[in-house]
């Protein structure tokens, strides 16, 4: 870059937050579960299992931490078809964004469905996760969901 124009001073501008963060006991349990190809949620005060889990009840604000396994299959509650994926999207071919309520869960999680075409998608369809070969403990351990 500096060689482009002789005599012009240039400097790289890298925007980053180089912190290490702990994900804590609730998300930590969720991500640990993913390394074992298990999906877990947290039990809210009203009995719903929230997936992905949150540390505080969305209605009452109370701390919650009881983890319950759900899925791994589930139902699409809404979806959006992307014909031309953006460069950072999880799949490089046409796919669907979806909210997916896993079996036993009381909330839906955001992920993508590799269904081939929009014609294969519908609200209420069943899907199951496709796992990464070597899960690392993050949300991308689920590569995508696929029709059951």
């Amino acid at each position, binding site marked *: 870059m500096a060689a482009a124009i002789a005599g012009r001073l240039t400097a790289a501008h890298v*925007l980053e937050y180089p912190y290490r963060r702990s994900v804590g006991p609730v998300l930590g349990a969720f991500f640990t579960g993913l390394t074992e190809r298990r999906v877990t949620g947290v039990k809210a005060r009203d009995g719903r299992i929230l997936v992905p889990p949150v540390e505080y009840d*969305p209605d009452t604000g109370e701390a919650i931490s009881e983890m319950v396994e759900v899925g791994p299959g589930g139902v699409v509650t*809404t979806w*959006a*078809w*992307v014909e031309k994926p953006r460069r950072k999207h999880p799949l490089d071919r046409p796919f669907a*964004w979806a909210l997916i309520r896993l079996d036993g869960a009381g909330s839906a*999680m*955001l992920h993508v469905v590799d269904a081939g075409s929009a014609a294969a998608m519908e*609200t209420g369809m069943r899907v199951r996760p496709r796992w990464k070969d070597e899960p690392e403990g993050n949300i991308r351990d689920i590569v995508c969901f696929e029709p059951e």
Partner: protein
Amino acid sequence: MARREVAIVGFAQSASVRRETALNEVEMLMPILGEAKAQAGLRGPEIGFTVSGSCDYLAGQPFAFVSALDAVGAWPPIAESHVEMDGAWALYEAWVKLQTGEADSALVYAFGKSSMGDLPEVLTLQLDPYTAAPLWPDAIALAALQARAYLEKTGRSERDLAAVAVRSRRAAAANPKAQVRTTADVETLLATPYLASPLRAHDCPPISDGCAALVLACGEAVRRSAMPPVWIRGIDHRIEAHALGVRDLAASPSTRLAGEKAGATPGGVDLAELHAPFTHQELILRDALGLGADVDVNPSGGALAANPMMVAGLIRIGEAAARLAAGAGRRALAHATSGPCLQQNLVCVLERD
């Protein structure tokens, strides 16, 4: 403590453009701030409180908002604040400040140059950093999930969404500050491809650079204004859960509650400016606020015609006030939103004497 009556006494906005290449934020703001203050009849040193709304992520620099203070002049020292939110929430802070009695006038401004980055990716950074952002869902994808949930729940169609776009663009044709002012009909729009089904380009807002400023006053300070005062009769804002999957995306309970708290009685307004960046969101907001066919919604063209980030909500309040001041009605509702899929909502009820 009795509530102090607060009036909007000045409002100005830049034209919204896809890419402002000649001016930086300070240069964009200076004439707009001058215009709003001149309407209010107040000079800079007379203003008791100054507050801005903007987002450092648009500039890609921490504390980028501080440099915008050059546009207001912060020496000798002024009482000043900033919210990393749309300017509508800066206006809320100013309203609270005036309620304390510590100031009798306030200057509110907002600015956003989205063209400096890749806006759909920048907006991803407002999501949960562990379970959502690593998938890089963009703003249009999330809005499309909400649109389908709404259409399937209500039985409304993509044609209904296109009708919102057509009406919005036709209204914008009379607004020199708006960016999308074409007059395509529903059939033409429905023949275009999806960006993320069920949303097409006309269902989504343009990417805009722009800014706006608004002046509030109480008591004697109101009399200095060149524009007829427009009174803020009620203002309230409410927020929903951060996690998309625990919300009912087809409705907007936070807007409904904010509307109730702000005193926006159904049918009780002549016009409404709704901050609905996506076509289906206008329909969701109309439902939540009980706005009937008799209410003139988004006579400015709304955010579908001009959507400077962090500014479009404040513009809704300013547009509604300016229209009342010009005699277009006696009572108006203005709404602003923030976050994905109408997560947070502010409702403001305005009246002229």
